[in-house]
């Protein structure tokens, strides 16, 4: 089948998609967006998290056909329009929250979503929101630091804008 949808604001189409293929497979292997990662392909690790119509989902659990005419935003779409790193991306680098980095794309999307809905989350809120994203390297402490840093910068930015 053919699947057409929007990825990071651009229209994409994929041909000869087998009906069992996941959105994750289509993104990674067919449309040149391998940023979302394939750690379990079972909905357990969060590495493949993308926005689907504005809601974070595990793209490994979404059948490719389900995204027909919908909007997908991946880690590749988190940068600013001018190409600069997004606030959450920068915070993860600055805090030392990226080691092997395999969990990072999923965590970035999930953190972005968290800070959209709750710009100043408590530590427990952060832990709750990120509990579906496994990281095997960091011990999560620096990920907590990154989210706190992103939150502080975001509030500051909003403050200056007002």
């Amino acid at each position, binding site marked *: 089948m053919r699947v057409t949808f929007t990825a990071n604001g651009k229209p994409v189409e994929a041909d000869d998609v087998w009906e069992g293929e996941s959105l994750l497979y289509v993104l990674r292997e067919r449309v040149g967006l391998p940023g979302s*990662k394939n750690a379990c392909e*079972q909905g357990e690790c969060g590495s493949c998290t993308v926005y689907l119509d504005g809601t974070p989902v595990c793209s490994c659990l979404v059948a490719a056909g389900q995204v027909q005419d919908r909007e997908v935003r991946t880690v590749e779409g988190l940068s600013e329009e001018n190409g600069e790193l997004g606030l959450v991306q920068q915070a993860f680098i600055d805090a*030392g929250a*990226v080691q092997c980095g395999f969990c*990072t794309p999923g965590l970035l999307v999930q953190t972005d979503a968290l800070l959209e809905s709750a710009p100043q989350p*408590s530590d427990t809120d952060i832990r709750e929101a990120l509990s579906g994203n*496994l990281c*095997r390297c960091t011990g999560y402490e620096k990920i907590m630091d990154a989210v706190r840093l992103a939150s502080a910068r975001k509030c500051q930015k909003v403050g200056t804008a007002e």
Partner: protein
Amino acid sequence: MTARTIQGQKNLQDITTGSTDGIGGSPLRPDGTLKVRGEFAYSSDMWHEDMLWGMALRSPHPRANILSVDIAEALKTPGVYAVLTHEDIPGSKYYGLEIQDQPALAIDKVRYHGEAIALVAADHPETARRAVKKIKVEYEVLTPITTEEQALHPEVHGYVHEPHEYKSHAYGNICHSQKLVHGQGVTEAVKALADVVVRGEYEVGMQDQAFLGPESGLAVPAEDGGIDLYVATQWLHVDRQQMAPVLGLPEEKVRLTLAGVGGAFGGREDLSMQIHASLLAQRTGKPVKIVYSRDESFFGHVHRHPAKMTYEHGATRDGKLVYADVRLVLDGGAYASASPAVVGNAASLGNGPYNIPNIRMEAIALYTNNPSCGAMRGFGAVQACFGYESQMDKLAAELGMDPVELRQLNAMSEGDYMPTGQRIDSPAPVAELLQRVKDMPLPPPLDLDNLDIRELPGALSNTSHGEGIVRGIGYSVGIKNVGFSEGFDDYSTARVRLEVIGGEPVAMVHTAMAEVGQGGVTVHGQIARTELGVEKVTIHPANTEVGSAGSTSASRQTYMTGGAVKLAAEAVKQALIAKGRKRYGWTHQDLNLVGGKVVSAAQGALVSMVDLLGDEAIDLTREHHHRPTVAFDKETGQGFGHVQYTFCANRAVVDVDVDLGLVKVVELTAAQDVGKALNPLSVIGQIQGGCTQALGLAVMEEIIVKDGKVRNASFTDYLIPTILDVPPIPVDMLELPDPNAPYGLRGVGEAPTVSATPSIVAAIRAATGLALNRIPVRPEHLTGTL
């Protein structure tokens, strides 16, 4: 022919970054920007236009004879390009890290659940999956050898490998054994010196590395008949060394390039898909990509050895250890992998960082039909630490002593001797590290009136409002060696090039070091900046075009490859200064490279490096070998076996819901001597990550193997800690330089994984009063509902 990724392989090209941070600073990772943009190409992201997908058929039985394999139907599947069995292997059929006992594809029998039997290459992963299902194998299923009792009685239960089945193995079902005798050993006379004796039997379950990036890579057939492989591994050169004979190629025709690695922790020391993808590429003449699914990953790599341990300690009434009598049995599973070295470690480090005048010890690894076990972070020291630290708590209770004081009373320090007779010739601040974790402020006590119930054990599931919750505190300390031991000539190679690019001096660092997330690439830039006084450093992709870097394991990479980068950079510096002497006739003895200039301490800047270099490049390669070690004597365990030791102490605070058996670690504190922190930010990240894997082993992580079959090969059933399970991990870093190591540094990555587990178990014991001799501690152990 070269591979490309969809994104243009950015991390397979040079990455240049600028910074003023040398060693001791915390500059940002050179690969960080690519990683947060999703542009960093991991091994599973490799892609080639006309590539095929490879997949393996794996055995459903842990022990069986293969009567026949029929590939006809599979071959007929449209879209299938090749189906291979061991008969199609052009070269040697066996490989292995230490003992060449592992067939690249099963030959006539299978020895563990998940062993690869045949391979398929097809145009889509689903086609490959369907074709794999069409391969018909007839088995004669045999009763697996799964216990120590069975393994040690081959006359009844048979052999995992028939003796002399191939040349390097002749020992029955004992893969490797190591004895150790220290002082007078354990005699009746020695026993009589002890006022108090504590005994314990301890058990450690099978832990998995569970790195997130699956085993994967792309093999591309080259025009010269060789193979170019883009792969996630821990040691490019040892992969090549094992691959080439099987592929029937000379080593120089097997070229490996490191693709992005999503964590390793020992699980990538052995080969996984390397030979399989290459065989398929050789056969089809097309690039072949293999990406393991998560269950295949659980089958496709070796795990941490499960262990059964008996410890007996004797001490005087005032708490001085008199003797230890120890036996460690490690289940090595079907193939040797790194078992011999793991046994050596377990035996030599298995008595902990304590002065014990008399020791008798035996450690063995068995061949069984359980999954193969080999390297995992902590490498034989982890299991033993749970044993000896449990014993220290038991002994303290028996003596009515404070458990930290008991440990401090017996703690080894610089100048003391290891049970192997090796003198510890650099700082060993065991007592101090314990004191440091003890002195750190405790988290506030549980306040049920002002509590977010999401912080209780059971967390989000809303299982409790605080009733039945008890808090406990526990301590531990551990010892780990750094680098490869027992006479192995461990070395690493680095190439450093200095040239002027865009009017600036730029240093290029080229090594074959596997960056698996540990941050070596960051540190290499720091070392080059420190030695060469430049800001811009280019990291060249790791490949086999430069000499071996050794493995990214044993906490050795900063020591070994960092040391090689230092040597190469120093050589470049000397060459540049020599050039200046020749040109300008300098006679100064105090020259250095600082801020892009050649500087004399007395007279200041003499010339800029740009002017001195001109358009000439200085390009030098150096090897760093650590001081030689010797193999342990097989009967006595004596010998200068290890290069360096590293120590970490922990304090764990836990809340336990005693009704439901749920544990929440509230805080896990670590104090570690790192010698010199080359990059404090990543050192702390390593310690926190190591503590977290230790937490996993303490309370949740175990591969369940029943009758040789793996029951939980998925992230649904094999649980690793989430951000909800992991507490704050405050780290107190001590920096006591080791005079034998580059910059005085000490390997960092493994010590916390060794030491932190027993502190958590001790805290659960303190909360519940239960003995808890097996890890991971499960809810049913706490509620008595087993």
